[in-house]
């Protein structure tokens, strides 16, 4: 034998004993498999949806009739703040990361995410972050109550919860960044041979752009909350007017992060809808390339519209005009998308299974949110609408029948691929109709309340607003209860049911439909070649 160099030989013998597959809790604690981690993200997000939803029901219960009935004003403010933080960072964002974890490697033909151990970390940071955030409910002074935007000087009046809030936000940011980096590296480096950028599925494209946005704006949030911390505890005056600081500048910094954050929560939704509509229209997506460019345009514009959140905070007329026009400009790429989806359906052999029903509802209801956004972009009109229930109606239309409907549509669309079973279609359709009716019952009256002058973030209101508030409260409880049906459908599908084929639907396009259902623990042991 002539072995001039021993590379693995010295270690190879040690490796003979293949470690036993982890089982039980250890499997979930130490897993590096993208499917396991995707599942954990989705379950975590569902739990947070119910936690945040319960807080929303506290809010709606109090608002069911005028006067103070159930909670103290301070606790009401805590619920408003925590509801927003939990829904944004705990429900919507992790749900999209979960879908990305499950589907991106399957869609690009990769065996796993590029950095699997980091993937495990990025998930497990989240329960810690939200454990800390929820623990603030039990500390002296209660949970943060100054709104999710954390404007100083109000937020600096938070009690013992303040440093916990900042730490939790940092942890959420770290988790998001790790997730975004992993997604970027996976998409760029692990695509199957032949899969050029312009052959990637739209869901992958939208996530690539979302991850780019996350990388660009997360340091801004981290810097902003750190400056709040140093203002509070280390004597700095970044935002303290008494020390020469500028509290309005915090609003600029926050919204420089906050507006791209809005698109972080909606771009992956666009990707999901772009996968579902062609499948159930039995036609290729109309205008694929224009969809990619429209997504990139929306991402670019998201950096130059932030001050439309603060027209009433005071700014020069030129600033108002600039931010008004750039905001309106977003309607162009968004319109491209909406028209492309409509054109995809045009003369298609459409069927309306549950994912398609949610996708079509998304199209209508998200567009309502888009239109009310256009109304809010008009400076003189915004002076009237600002801080009213019209704003609440607007962003809930964008985030609930927008982002959350897309997530639900995605779950129904890919659930058979994950579990190997078809879900109960009848129950799925019942879930859709209940959800759609109640979501409109909840949020549509808020437009009228806002136009009639009802301010947001108040636990009590004038009797003239009573009727629409009661309708919204009934709708909120109906919406919340309808989601229990969603949980039941998922559990039922995971436990059994009609076997799903590899394709699941009729001739869907994409690599994820070439692997068996359920997708095996290790997929694409051989990179598929994309032609």
């Amino acid at each position, binding site marked *: 034998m002539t072995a001039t160099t021993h590379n693995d030989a010295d270690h*190879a013998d040690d490796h003979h004993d293949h470690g036993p597959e982890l089982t039980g809790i250890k499997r979930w604690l130490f897993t590096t498999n993208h499917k396991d981690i995707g599942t954990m993200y989705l379950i975590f997000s569902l739990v947070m949806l119910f936690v945040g939803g319960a807080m929303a029901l506290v809010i709606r219960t109090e608002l069911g009739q005028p006067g103070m009935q159930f909670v103290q004003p301070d606790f009401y403010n805590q619920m408003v703040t925590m509801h927003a933080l939990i829904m944004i960072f705990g429900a919507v964002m992790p749900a999209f990361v979960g879908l990305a974890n499950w589907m991106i490697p399957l869609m690009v033909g990769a065996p*796993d995410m590029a950095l699997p151990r980091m993937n495990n970390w990025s998930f497990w940071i989240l329960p810690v972050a939200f454990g800390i955030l929820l623990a603030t409910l039990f500390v002296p002074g209660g949970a943060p109550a100054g709104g999710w935007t954390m404007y100083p000087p109000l937020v600096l009046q938070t009690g013992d919860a303040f440093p916990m809030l900042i730490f939790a936000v940092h942890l959420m940011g770290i988790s998001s960044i790790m997730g975004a980096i992993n997604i970027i590296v996976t998409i760029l480096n692990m695509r199957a041979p032949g899969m050029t950028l312009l052959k990637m599925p739209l869901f992958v494209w939208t996530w690539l752009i979302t991850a780019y946005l996350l*990388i660009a704006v997360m340091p801004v949030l981290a*810097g902003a909350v750190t400056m709040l911390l140093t203002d509070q505890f280390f004597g700095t005056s970044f935002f303290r007017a008494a020390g020469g600081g500028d509290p309005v500048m915090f609003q600029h910094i926050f919204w420089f992060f906050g507006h791209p954050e809005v698109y972080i929560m909606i771009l992956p939704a666009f990707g999901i809808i772009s996968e579902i509509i062609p499948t159930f229209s039995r036609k290729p997506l109309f205008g694929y390339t224009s969809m990619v460019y429209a997504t990139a345009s929306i991402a670019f514009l998201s950096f130059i519209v932030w001050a439309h959140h603060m027209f009433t905070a005071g700014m020069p007329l030129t600033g108002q005009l600039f931010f008004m026009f750039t905001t309106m400009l977003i309607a162009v790429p968004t319109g491209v998308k909406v028209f492309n989806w409509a054109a995809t359906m045009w003369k298609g052999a459409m069927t309306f299974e549950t994912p398609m029903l949610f996708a079509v509802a998304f199209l209508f209801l998200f567009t309502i949110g888009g239109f009310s956004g256009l109304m809010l972009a008009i400076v003189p009109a915004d002076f009237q609408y600002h801080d009213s229930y019209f704003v609440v109606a607007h962003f809930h239309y964008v985030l609930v029948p927008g982002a959350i409907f897309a997530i639900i549509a995605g779950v129904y669309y890919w659930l058979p691929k994950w579990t190997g079973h078809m879900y109960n279609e009848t129950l799925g359709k019942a879930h859709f109709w209940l959800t759609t009716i109640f979501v409109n019952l909840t949020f549509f009256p808020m437009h009228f309340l806002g136009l009639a002058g009802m301010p947001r973030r108040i636990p009590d209101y004038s009797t003239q607003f009573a009727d629409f508030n009661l309708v919204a409260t009934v709708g909120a409880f109906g919406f919340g209860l309808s989601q229990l049906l969603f949980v039941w459908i998922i559990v039922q599908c995971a436990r059994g049911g009609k076997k799903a084929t590899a394709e699941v639907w009729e001739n869907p396009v994409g690599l994820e439909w070439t692997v068996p259902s359920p997708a095996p623990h290790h997929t694409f042991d051989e990179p598929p070649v994309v032609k």
Partner: protein
Amino acid sequence: MESGRHTFNLQANCALSARQAVAFFSGIAAVSLGIAVLFVTRGYWPVLPFAGAELAFLAWALRASWRAGQAREKLVIDSDEIVITRWDPNAEAPSTTRLPRSWTKAALIEVRDRRGGEQLALGQQGRWWVIGRFLGEEERRRLHQRLSQVLRQNGHIGPR
């Protein structure tokens, strides 16, 4: 393949070229640092260290993944010996291992591995040299079949 000589080139899948990785990173770094510097000029310097740390992390991740994708191995099987040449992205120069053909067998062995499963190895006298770590399970299985076929020629019987 020369007469009696078989050559196998094994290479990891890597969709990104070094140039593309640098171009992508430069683009994102310019935007992220540009934003951070803008805030620094206004006195809000704490944004900068976060942007720097995040970009360093991204650079590490891109580099680690890209380098893992550069792993390459060449197997040359002659009538009397097998030469394994490895281009490990973490090593400065390629390394070479020479094994006597008549004593060497190919086998799928169980190893402790992040993704579990079997690894393909060439072995003789109880020692194993794992090859194609970066290949997928199915690719390893196919290579194992092919290597066994080649080693079986000239009277060698493998795998055992």
